[in-house]
Each structure stands twice: as C-alpha cells, then as structure tokens.
C-alpha cells in the first residue's frame, strides 16, 4: 500500500478555489480545525462548504471570506448557541445558504456511493411540499412505477474533497473513528478526494490486532496529516473535550466587532499549529482533558 502521510502544506494542494469541500464531525465535535486554519491562512476563495452539522469550522471560514455557499442541516455552537459569523453573513446576505435536512444530505451522498441517479423517498411528494425546509430544497419529483404515487427524487451529492479529523490511522489510511460518528463514513466514500488529519499515527501491526475497529478503508484516502489537538477548540474523544471557553472567546470577539483581530491573532499571526497551541496554553488544554 502507498504511504500517504504528508505535511499539511502538501495536503493543502488537494484543495482548489471554488471546490465543494465537505467537513466531517458534528457541530463542536471532531472538526478538522487545524486544516481549516491552513485553508484560511492560504486565503482560499469561493469555497462551497457542505457539512451535516457545521460549527466553528464554517463560522471562521465565513469570517475570513473563504466561503461562497454553505449546505448544512445546522450551523451552530450547540449549547453555546449561534455560530455568530455564519449568522451575520446570512442575515446580511453575504453568502448563499441551503438549509438541508439530515436525510437530504445522507441520501444525496448515498446516491453517489451506490451509483444512483437520484434517491426517491416513500413519503408522498404532496406531503413533503408542505414542509418549507424541504420545499426550499427545490427537489424534482418522479412517479413511482409501482404505486403511481408522486415521489421526491433527492439528487446525488459529490464533494470535491472531504476533510475529516480522526483519532488514529496507520500510514496508509486504515483509520479508527471513535465516539460520535455522524456521517463521516458517507463523506469519505462519496467525495472525490479525502484528507485525514489524525491525533496519532500507529503502525499497521497495531491496526491488524483489531481489524474490526478500522472504520475507514485506505483505498478512499488521499492524504494523512498527523496533527495532535487538530480539532481544537472542538472535541476529539478520548483525547480532549471541546474548549467552550475558547469558543466563547470567538463569540465575544465577533460580538465586539473584533473577529478580524481574532483571525490575525490566532491564524494569520501564527506560522504553525504548534504555535497556535502555545498561544492556547497548557492550562487551557489541561482543563479539557478527561479526568480518569
């Protein structure tokens, strides 16, 4: 198998301006933040972002002007509330947004994976049309050849590149996924390219001791970057919880109109992710370590 471990600089070249970029994880869980900071630092433009439940990764890319359009079923900071920059951009009409449902994203990706031209749902189209979020998806319908009922045909979704942060992988992309899984399995299989950022790289001999734990097949993986704490300020079970204190800082800076200062401070003003972590500091990181 091919060794795919690369530097973040090398992996970055798999992303192009205007790409449909899928981000893994869920809201404030396991977001590929270190890679997102690199995207922001590299000033990517006109990205279209798709996520199941988006969080700070979408919020900061929007704040930095990297985003043209977002497709998601939710974008927020969970218990903390709104994703402030995303919300502002929508209300001020600076970006396009399609509010998906969980189902529309999942079956869209599944249609790609299974080679389906579209995916029909058994709930009658006339009922789905009553639901505003569904209606605004502008789905086309088909007539069921079996019952004659008019059904909605969900179109396939094919991201250009998926960026997923995981616990561990070997050099080839046999990777584990622990805790909340969300739809990362689908994003990995349906995207044209896949970049994994991981907390640790382990030898294949370790992978082979528990092959049933391998949740990612290496044939789907294009690049692997080792970045410990790479999901901060979101969580990566079992290594660390989300840093609600830092997320609060993002919210407060945004409210005060200082989000550009935040970006300068934590993203443009640091050269590497290690420099970012030093800025965050040991005491902040020890707070989010689970107690044994």
């Amino acid at each position, binding site marked *: 198998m091919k060794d795919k471990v690369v530097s973040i600089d090398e992996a970055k070249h798999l992303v192009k301006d205007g790409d449909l970029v899928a981000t893994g994880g869920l809201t404030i869980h396991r977001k590929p933040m270190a890679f997102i900071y690199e995207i922001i630092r590299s000033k990517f433009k006109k990205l279209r972002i798709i996520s199941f439940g988006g969080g700070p990764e979408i919020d900061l890319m929007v704040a930095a002007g990297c985003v043209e359009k977002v497709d998601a079923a939710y974008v927020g900071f969970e*218990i903390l*509330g709104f994703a402030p920059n995303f919300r502002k951009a929508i209300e001020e009409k600076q970006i396009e947004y399609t*509010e998906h*449902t969980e189902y529309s994203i999942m079956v869209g990706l599944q249609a790609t994976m299974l080679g389906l031209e579209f995916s029909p749902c058994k709930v009658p189209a006339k009922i789905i049309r009553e639901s505003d*979020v569904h209606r605004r998806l502008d789905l086309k319908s088909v007539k069921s050849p079996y019952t004659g009922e008019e059904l909605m045909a969900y179109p396939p979704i094919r991201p250009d590149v998926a960026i997923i942060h995981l616990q561990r992988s070997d050099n080839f992309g046999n990777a584990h996924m622990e805790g*909340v899984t969300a739809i990362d399995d689908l994003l990995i299989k349906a995207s044209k390219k896949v970049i994994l950022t991981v907390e640790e790289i382990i030898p294949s001999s370790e992978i082979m001791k528990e092959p049933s734990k391998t949740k990612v097949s290496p044939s789907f993986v294009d690049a692997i970057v080792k970045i410990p704490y790479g999901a901060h300020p979101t969580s990566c079970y079992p290594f660390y919880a989300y840093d609600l204190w830092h997320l609060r800082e993002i919210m407060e800076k945004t409210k005060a109109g200082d989000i550009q200062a935040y970006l300068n401070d934590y993203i443009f003003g640091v050269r590497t992710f290690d420099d970012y972590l030093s800025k965050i500091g040991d005491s902040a990181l020890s707070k989010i370590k689970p*107690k044994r």
Partner: protein
Amino acid sequence: MSKDDEYTIDELMIVCMAREVYDEGIVMQGLTTPMATTAYYLAKATHAPDAYIYQLAGNILTNRLDALPVSMVFNEFQAMKAAMHIRSQLEVYETLFTRTNSIIEFFRPAQIDKCGNMNNSVIGEPENPKVKLPGAFGIPDAFLIYPKLLIYVPRHEKRVFVEKVDCISGLGISKKISDEKEIIVISNLGVFHISTRTKEMEALTIHPGVSLDELNENTSFQLKIPQDISETKPPTVNELNLIREKIDPLGTRRLEMLGGKERQRLLWEIMDKETVV
C-alpha cells in the same frame, strides 16, 4: 427548600417528559439537550428500565445508568463510558424507518403554531431573515416520519406559541396527511395535545398554580381548554431526589429555563464547576 416535595417548574416539566418514555421504547437523544436527557434517564431509573437510550444524535447506545451524571463539558465522554454500540447516522435513520412506532424523541421549537408546525430555521421571512437560527437538523424529516412527536417548551410565551410560524421546519398536523399522527407539547404552563382527529392544539392538563388567564395571555392563538381540565400530577419525592442527586446534580436542566445573560452566567458556572480539578 423547606419541604421534601417542593419542586421547581423545570423539575415538573422533566417528570412530565419522562412519563412519555415507555419500557422498550427507542429513545433518541439529540445534542446537548439537558432537560430531555434528564427526563430520559429519570424514566430509565423509574418506570422504563428497558428503554433503549441512544445518545449524541442517536449515535451511542448507552447501558443502564452508567452514563450519569448529565454533563456539559464531557457529554460525549460520559456516554462513551456507558456505550454498548456505536452506529453511524445512516444507521440511526434505518431505525426510524423500520422501528417507526417505537421512537421517542423530544424537540424544542423556536416557534410552534396550533397545528403543531414548528420552526427552528429562521425568524422573519426565509428570504429576508431577521434572525437566522442554527437550523432544524433532523426535525424536518422526523416530522414526516414519526407517528408521535414530542415537543417541550421551557418558556411558554406568545413569541413561541404563534399564530403562524415563519418557516415550517417540522410539519405538524396537515390536512394532506391521512395516516394517524399525534403531537404532545409540554411547556412550563401545561401539557397540550394535537392529533389528526382534533386538528388543533388542546390543553390536556394545566400545571399546579397556573391560571387559565395566564395560559391564554401567553399564547398567540386560541387554545382549546376543556371545562373540566385537571391539574398536572406533581413529581414524587423519589423523582425529585433522583433528578437532583443522581441524574443532574450540576443543574444543567436549569439552563433551558433561562435566556440571555442569566443563561450565560449559569452556563459558565456549570462549566467551571465541572472542570475543577
């Protein structure tokens, strides 16, 4: 508190919510929903020990009461301590379509109307939003699939119980639906019900100490209120002890009752309490 059976309104709501969970029901916990989580665990500790509780967006099946207490910072870690099965989101939806009648899930709306339509998408016109809410996540789908929907509203106000929702994120009782469907709404003032037969929201019980005037003053539409409406049954001492001491000693449930600065203050207090080394 002076007497053992004195309770707060969040505790009464949680007890009402727990009563909707039944043994062997499949419970879907969303994300950080402290009142719903507390209610699910209360049911499991009392009348529904064999309920299946899937936490964290339905991804993680936890065993018995090992995931306690309810946590704010280490939510996922607590669930994983008691995890028996981890599944993908697609597998969650496989359950929705094949075990449809057994699903129990509470949703919290930003707006709800008398037909049970709920909105968590946007305040104002969808094309010209005044407030873009974080989003409805699985609500649009759940409201098309579940035959029974459970809703909780910690703050029963006119701006929540509206004449018409700004956007239908979750489709309530629509005239186009022929299958039977029912919606239970539990608020801080009472318990309400809507079904394909009744079409419009009707009060089932009113909480002790709440007047009919208070109910009407805080609802934008005309609520049906039966003449002989009874009071909601209060929590038992056992239920109160379980909530306060075993399930939610951090008091995360109270976050849902508050808004604005008060809520922020309590949130930081809980977070700091939880991470004291």
